């Protein structure tokens, strides 16, 4: 049974998925000792919930892919313990959501399935995980465009995809993050939405999101695996990614599931350096 959680639903009023998020939150609070956080009130008076958030683990329920509840949590620097997306759950359970805002059979069916899922998994917030020591004595090769310097580490254990994300692989684990190309283009990174700990990520699946006032960037994982840790420091200081996206700005750590196969579609320093250079030139040329 899910208990002692603070529940933050998106409570989206204009979409079926949002309405479902609200219903799930209500049920969770009725059935067990969980506390509701109203997203509307939290936005204007966050201090109201400080105590609740300190004393409870936080479950975020997003309705649609815009994920307003996750974003609100990121904006208020709240540490998310668990997260579900109604849209994703609907896909998993093969239930098609219509545009109807009333909860009918279809919707109630999905609500029941989601609640079952939540109540039947263990309440472990962070799975136990052994720290691997990552050495950060990279050497970098750089090139300059105007005054902007782009760096790429030459370490052979770092693999890249063409979506400007890297994976630093040690044994069956990898830390992942973004490259200087992303960091320079976004400029000052203000918000960080981490992936869920415990989430199973496919290769090229989404693994977190970073945002500046210029744009949003969704991280596309170079490797497949299970998220075992996130860089907690980024929750309060996302600009560490601007400082050094390869070291202090790493995003998440994954336990690899099929690296040998993933590797087929990854590139090393030599190739990525050339690709990044070309991208920078196209952008500025």
């Amino acid at each position, binding site marked *: 049974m899910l208990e002692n959680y603070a529940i933050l639903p998106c409570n989206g009023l204009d979409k079926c998925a949002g309405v479902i998020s609200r219903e799930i939150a209500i049920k969770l609070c009725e059935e067990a000792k969980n506390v509701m956080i109203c997203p509307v009130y939290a936005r204007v008076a966050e201090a109201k919930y400080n105590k609740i958030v300190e004393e409870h683990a936080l479950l975020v329920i997003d309705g649609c892919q815009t994920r307003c509840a996750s974003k609100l949590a990121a904006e208020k620097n709240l540490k998310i313990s668990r997260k579900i997306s109604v849209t994703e759950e609907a896909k998993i359970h093969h239930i098609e959501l219509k545009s109807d805002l009333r909860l009918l059979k279809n919707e109630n069916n999905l609500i029941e399935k989601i609640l079952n899922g939540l109540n039947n998994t263990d309440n472990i917030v962070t799975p136990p995980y052994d720290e691997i020591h990552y050495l950060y004595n990279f050497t970098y*090769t750089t*090139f*300059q*465009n*105007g*005054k902007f*310097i782009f760096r790429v580490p030459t370490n052979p254990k770092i693999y890249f995809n063409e979506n400007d994300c890297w994976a630093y692989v040690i044994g069956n684990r990898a830390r992942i993050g973004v490259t200087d190309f992303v960091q320079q283009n976004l400029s000052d990174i203000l918000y960080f939405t981490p992936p869920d700990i415990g989430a199973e990520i496919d290769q090229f699946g989404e693994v977190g999101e970073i945002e500046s006032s210029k744009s949003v960037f969704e991280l596309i994982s170079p490797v497949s695996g299970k998220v075992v840790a996130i860089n907690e420091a980024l929750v309060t200081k996302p600009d560490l990614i601007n400082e050094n996206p390869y070291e202090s700005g790493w995003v998440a750590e994954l336990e690899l599931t099929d690296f040998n196969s993933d590797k087929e579609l990854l590139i090393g320093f030599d190739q990525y350096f050339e690709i990044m250079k070309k991208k920078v*030139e196209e952008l*500025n040329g």
Partner: protein
Amino acid sequence: MSEFKVGVLSCSGEECLGGTISRLATRKVLEELKFIDTVTLCLPLYLAGGEEERNFAKVFPTISVDGCDKLCAKRSTEKYSGKINGFIDVSKIIGDENALNTKIVRNKDLTDEHHQMVDEVVSEIVKTISNISPDAYSGKTFHGCGCGNE
């Protein structure tokens, strides 16, 4: 991509109008005069450890735009990057009585007359850039960067 990038460093002084005009003129050159490939540099970053700014000014020709005859931007650039390829003293163009005005500094207080001053400084910047000796653009290779400017 142009090989002829020029760095422009304005003092952006906060105490008097000259600083505001230096800043606005520098921005205008960057935004409106596309035929000159300019890059604006942040002066205070020199001391605060701005690797990118320092390197740029060492390698590309750089000019300074100062609001008054203290020439802070010029002197600091020389101090930290070693050379300057041209400099402008806004007070020489718009006169000390304007440049040292401490009352009108904010963007919203500027009149048409002030914007005209900005334009005068813009043409002075353009002139200064076109006077940079072609030699200043050579020897602009970066050490070990394989930069995409070639």
